[in-house]
């Protein structure tokens, strides 16, 4: 039955409120307001990061203004990797404990991870066109990043099929195997000959203090945004589970 894996705890009387709310604190009004606080803090921080990226950070000599793409491109990649790490952990916990809350967390983080990987794949070519003269090259890092995006888009497509526990298990296995691509992407610049810049946040990476401060501000703003989006996305999953339960009991 579709709701078998949705039932959070057998001890509670089964109503749509107990079924869908596996993280009760997320529906607490205080938490809702804290989540909104994260959203507002993210917006303000993005405004500051944008100001720093456009006016505070110095213009790079060889690439000019196009180098400023880097301040949001790199944090997008870091947040995507972090999101897929959460998917990985939540999928392992789901396979181990078979609790719907881990499945919902994995799905929510995967969707946000795909969004941030999309940003990486959209902004990277803009930078590449100026740096390399081409929007895309089949470089190791670019190719492995594209593969990562395809793996997790596939994961989301799999999640779109019939709502069963078996689908959730298959998806969890795919998410765990797919996460192996993240360290491959990270080390690709060392494993293969590649055009993509290596570690940019080291002293040898050529960043001035103003550039590093801008990068860190942008990273903070995307981290706040990620927390906000993740809370909202899990709350959406809880609401959907309640609707599914109500639908089944109405039939």
């Amino acid at each position, binding site marked *: 039955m579709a709701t078998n894996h949705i039932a959070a705890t057998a001890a509670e009387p089964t109503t*749509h409120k107990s079924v869908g709310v596996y993280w009760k604190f997320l529906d607490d009004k205080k938490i809702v307001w804290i989540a909104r606080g994260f959203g507002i803090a993210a917006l303000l921080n993005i405004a500051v990061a*944008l100001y720093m990226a456009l006016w505070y950070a110095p213009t790079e000599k060889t690439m*000019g*203004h*196009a180098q*400023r*793409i880097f301040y*949001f*491109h790199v944090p*997008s990649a870091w947040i995507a990797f972090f999101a897929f790490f959460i998917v990985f952990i939540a999928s392992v916990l789901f396979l181990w404990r078979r609790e719907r809350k881990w499945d919902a967390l994995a799905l929510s983080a995967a969707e*946000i991870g795909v*969004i941030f990987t*999309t*940003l990486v794949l*959209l*902004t990277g070519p*803009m*930078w590449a*066109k*100026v740096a390399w003269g081409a929007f895309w090259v089949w470089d190791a890092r670019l190719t492995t990043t594209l593969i990562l995006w395809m793996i997790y888009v596939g994961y989301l497509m799999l999640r779109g099929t019939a709502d069963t526990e078996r689908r959730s298990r298959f998806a969890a296995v795919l998410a765990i195997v797919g996460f192996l691509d993240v360290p491959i992407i990270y080390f690709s610049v060392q494993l293969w000959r590649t055009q993509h810049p290596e570690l940019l946040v080291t002293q040898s990476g050529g960043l001035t203090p103003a550039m590093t401060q801008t990068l860190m501000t942008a990273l903070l703003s995307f981290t706040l*945004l990620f927390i906000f*989006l993740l809370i*909202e*996305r899990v*709350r*959406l999953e809880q*609401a*959907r589970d*309640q*609707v599914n339960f*109500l*639908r089944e*009991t*109405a039939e």
Partner: protein
Amino acid sequence: MEYLAIAYGLIAVVLIGYAFSIRQRMSAAQRERAVLESKNQ
């Protein structure tokens, strides 16, 4: 400069679009939940 504008524009479109999509889906789920709750009572 134009590539920078395109890149930042794409970031804005994707993030605003995604946040809006979560909001829309949440409203739809809440509406449906309210309808089903009233039917079940």
